[in-house]
Structure formats: structure tokens, C-alpha cells
């Protein structure tokens, strides 16, 4: 089983990377990647919220929605949970860790609309992962996000100084870089088979 977990983690981390292969969380990926510091901050925040959200939505899903045959309310319930959770985390951070809040605070509201969080939560219950696997899945997916955004941010600092044609500056070149990164990550295809 532990071997399976390892293989799955590799799969979620690089082979089926949440950003580069699944296109989840593109907005923060492009928006919060101008500096490595903020990127890693955002990545950490995503891992944290993703794992937490996954745990809570899993519990709600199995002990409430499935029990009362309300699975069709999944989307609406999950998004409300995530929104509330982010609010809660924000308040919590503001009070107990002002330093962290200062660096992550502005990204937390963005996380609500980060489709990777909701996506991971829904996919996790759709794939019928058990509670623990779900959390590992969410953490690995979040780590995949961190990996992608961190690598990308360090490249982007260099791009800021490049003498590229005006029309490619900003988002276009970021997307083209993401494209090449995603090509490179395709080299991992078949590394593990699940």
C-alpha cells in the first residue's frame, strides 16, 4: 500500500500536475508568480487550504450528502464550505500568525476562486478515495501546484528583464513558458502507471 501511495504521489505531483496537465489553478499560477517569495507563499497556502478543504468536504460528502441522497448538491455545498474555510483561515492567521498573514493575506481571498481547490475536492470524492488517500491526494496536488508555480516564478523573474516584443510581455510569454514547461513535464509520462 505504501508503495502505491508513493506512486500516486509521484503521479499527482509531476505526471498529472494540477497546473501543467490539468489546467487547474491557472489564475493564481499566472497572477501570483512574479516573485519566488510570493509564489512559494501562495503555493504553501494552497497546500494548506487544499488539504483542509479536502478533509472537510470528504466528511460532509460521506456522512451527509451521500447518506441523504443529496449528491447533486455537491458543487453548491463544497464551494460554500471552501469559501467559509478560507474566511476562517484568514481570521485565524490574522490573529495568531500576523507575519504569515502579512505575506499570504492578500492571496487568501484569491484562493476561494482558485478552481484547483474545488476541483481537487470534487475529484477526490468522484474518484472515491478514502479519507486518508483524499488528504494525501490533496497535499500532493497542492505540492504539485507549489512546484509548478515556484519553478515558474523563478523563470519569470528572468523574463521580466528580457527584451521581448511588447505584445508578448506579461501573460502571453508566461503562457508560452508554461507550454514549454508542460512539454518538459511530459517526459515524465509513464514514469509510474496507475
Amino acid at each position, binding site marked *: 500500500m505504501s508503495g502505491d501511495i508513493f506512486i500516486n504521489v509521484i503521479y499527482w505531483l509531476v*505526471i498529472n500536475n494540477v497546473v501543467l496537465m490539468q489546467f487547474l489553478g491557472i489564475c493564481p499560477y499566472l497572477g501570483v508568480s512574479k516573485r519566488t517569495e510570493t509564489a512559494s507563499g501562495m503555493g504553501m497556502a494552497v497546500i494548506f487550504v487544499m488539504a483542509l478543504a479536502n478533509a472537510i468536504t470528504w466528511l460532509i460528502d460521506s456522512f451527509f450528502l451521500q447518506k441523504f441522497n443529496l449528491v*447533486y*448538491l455537491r458543487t*453548491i455545498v463544497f464551494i*460554500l464550505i471552501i469559501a467559509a474555510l478560507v474566511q476562517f483561515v484568514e481570521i485565524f492567521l490574522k490573529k495568531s500568525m500576523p507575519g504569515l498573514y502579512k505575506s499570504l493575506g492578500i492571496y487568501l481571498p484569491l484562493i476561494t476562486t482558485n478552481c484547483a481547490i474545488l476541483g481537487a475536492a470534487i475529484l477526490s470524492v468522484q474518484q472515491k478515495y478514502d479519507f486518508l488517500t483524499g488528504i494525501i491526494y490533496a497535499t500532493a496536488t497542492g505540492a504539485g501546484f507549489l512546484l509548478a508555480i515556484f519553478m515558474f516564478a523563478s523563470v519569470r523573474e528572468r523574463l521580466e528583464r528580457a527584451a521581448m516584443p511588447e505584445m508578448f510581455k506579461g501573460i502571453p510569454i508566461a503562457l508560452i513558458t508554461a507550454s514549454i514547461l508542460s512539454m518538459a513535464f511530459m517526459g515524465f*509520462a*509513464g514514469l509510474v*502507471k*496507475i
Partner: protein
Amino acid sequence: MKNVFILTIISLVAGLCLSGVYIGTKDQIEISKKAAFNNSLKVVLPFMKDKYEDVPPVKYDMEEVPIYPVVENGVLQGAALQVIGKNGYAGNIKVLVGVDKNQTITGIQILEHKETPGLGTKSADEAWWGQFKGKSLDKFKFKVKKDGGDVDAITAATITSRSVTDAVQKGLVVYREYAGSFNKMGVSHE
């Protein structure tokens, strides 16, 4: 307090609306799901007349193979088997294999896969899997040519071809066993 109240009201209305839509669409969703599967079944079992027996999966070599036998007047006409091709290029490949009573292949369908688009996915084209039609275990070597068999591999996708070929062969083997036990005991729903 009033704010929370409004939110609750809105949520309740939304919930009610949704249950309405859900009840309205529930049956259709089931029908669609069934139809999709039935279409696949029809492709692999051209002789089937809209009816198959609902039987538990067959155990074979540590795995459970779902089987959908077609029985007419107590005689087994053939079956569709849902087999897993191991070691595909990027993971397992779920294949639906149709076998007739002569233990020859009548068709296959790729149900689930993670293969490379445009390459491994060619295994889903009849242009490729057509070569299995009418083949049986005794007259056809279910191995790709590179491994000394009779199967033409998809160009540049040997691994996918191998995996699918293995699955098809497994389907035939499982069917043979099932047919053996069927002839002894008849259709079993247990």
C-alpha cells in the same frame, strides 16, 4: 442576523429548485448512462438483442472480470467481458471484449485509458482492432508481431498494442472458463 437569514433563505430556495431539477433529470441520467454502456455492448456484441444476463463478475487470477453474457433459450450465445490491460503506456487500459459462442472475437471497445492522444488512442479505432474480429485462441497468436505473435502493433505504440492484445486474450480465456462452467450449471445469478 438578518444577513444570515437572507443567505439561508436564498440557499433554501436554491436547494429546492435543484431538487426539482434533480428529480426531473434523475431518470434521464440513468437512461443516458445505460444507453452509453449499451451502445458499447452493441458494438462488441453485434448479435445481442437488447438483453443480457445480470451476473456477478468472474474471478480470474486475483482479479474480478465483469461479464455480460447473452443467453437465448438457455443457450449461451456469447458474452462481453470487461478486462483490464495491464502495463499500458501510462497505466491500465479498460477494454470491453465481445466473444461469441464459437469463442471468437466479435468486437472490442476501449472503455478507459490514459494513453497518448493520437497514438495509443488509435487502439480505439476499428481500423486497428478490426484485426481481432473472428479470431480465436487456437488459430491466432495473441501477441504483437515483434514478440512473435500475429498482431500488427500500432506504429510507435507497441506498448499500448501489447496491453490491449493481452486484455483481448485474457477476455477469451475468461470466456472459455465461463462457458465451461455455464454448460455445467446454466446461468447463475449468484
